């Protein structure tokens, strides 16, 4: 059923120069298996249409995925005109997006 991703996933985001990073993690192996299959680079771009070039890394030991959103912040924090120039709340935005989550994970 459609529920905010943050119902089962936590996230933390921040800046590295002009790039933003967005870590997403879940709290069980079953949930990670689902997240890893579900949250592809394409899906992330669909949920965060602002994302352009994205790198995706898997950290199964932490039940986590890490995304780097290249160039999201222009020339870096001090110069960015983006709403939320340090991408601090990027993760909370992603958590609020409604997605199809398997019933047994809720």
């Amino acid at each position, binding site marked *: 059923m459609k529920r905010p991703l*943050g119902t089962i*996933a*936590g*996230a*933390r985001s*921040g*800046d*590295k*120069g*002009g*790039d933003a*990073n967005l*870590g*997403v*993690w879940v*709290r069980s192996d079953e949930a990670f298996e689902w997240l890893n299959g579900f949250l592809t680079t394409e899906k992330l771009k669909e949920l965060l249409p602002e994302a352009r070039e994205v*790198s995706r*890394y*898997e*950290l*199964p*030991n*932490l*039940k*986590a995925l*890490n995304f*780097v959103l290249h160039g999201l912040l222009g*020339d*870096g*924090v*001090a*110069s960015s*005109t983006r*709403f939320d120039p340090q991408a*601090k709340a990027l*993760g*909370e935005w992603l*958590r609020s997006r409604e997605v199809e989550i398997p019933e047994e994970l809720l």
Partner: protein
Amino acid sequence: MIRIGNASGFYGDRLSAMREQLEGGELDVLTGDYLAELTMLILGRDRMKDSSLGYAKTFLRQMEDCLALALDKGVKIVVNAGGLNPEGLARKLGAKVGYVTGDDLKARFPEALTANAYLGAWEIAECLDQGAQVVVTGRVTDASLVVGPAAAHFGWARDDWHRLAGATVAGHVLECGTQATGGNYSFFTEIDVTRPGFPIAEVDEDGSCLITKHDGTGGAVNVDTVTAQLLYEIGAPEYLGPDVTTHFDTIRLDPHERGVRISGTRGSPPPGTLKVCLNTLGGFRNSTTFVLTGLDVQQKADLVRRQLHDAIGEEGLTWTLARTDQRDAATEEQASALLHVTIKTTDPKRAKGFSRAAIELALASYPGFHVTAPPGDGTPFGVYQAAYVNRDEVSAKAVLL
């Protein structure tokens, strides 16, 4: 085991954290991170005004309050508060102080306002080996503040990759202070985060550690709060640093009655280059937010945009219209949208002229014209860039006063 605490995650963090960490329980070393990319720019501007400045002034206030207490308890202080002027800061402290220098590469990058290589742990370790009670550095990696004291304490070798990697993970967890103990945490509703305590890593000889905090402090240290911080500001799982390459996909977390055990971390040799934080002055910026209430929001935005372009030209202006307005709203605020405009320009006069142009619209624009706050004179802004230099081009040095 060595107990390493953190009392600062950025320049501006809780001033009383130093005292809280010293009084709250046992510690061997207390660290503090004061330097973000943006902070180097702020300190660079301080230094332009007064060459004796360029360090984190709040750390000096904390030392006025707490240095005697730290010395009394035998707790060593290791911070990067030296910023662009570690020697200047070191000379203001009444203790056996070591400082780390050599990160400043302005001579190599003369066009930059600040140019600093990210140094590592070994000069910090050297200061401690020589008996320093306080170590102040400039630009070192945040994690080095933890790796240095652990390496000195255990007498690690420079190629103890797994140990160094373990301590780097401890340092990464600690470097943002309360972000490891429930601050800025997605599942904040599950814990009491009114006033989170600052984190502590009890590092073992093999580089593994227990992340914990003093008894009776707020927040929480659990697998989720630690995971959240491990994911902060990272890229690929091979986390490159000056001391070691740390493999984040080997970290193992286990719950513990006093926090979280971190073990299993593997390390490998670091790259042959050091990262350099470059800040150049990009120009001047100014901004304002117009409030657009009620009907015809898009047309109101179009009008004010046309007017401002007519007054000062479009160049360097960025507009965003946030449709926060709701139809038929019961409060004025809910009936309102926000139109943000920012100017970035190399001409300080134009940044200042932006304010006058925006305010001159006050009686001549859309119905209901007002702004959230009047624009100021404009401020300079920096452009951050990373550069890389060979290790042998940087000569880091430990100096004991």
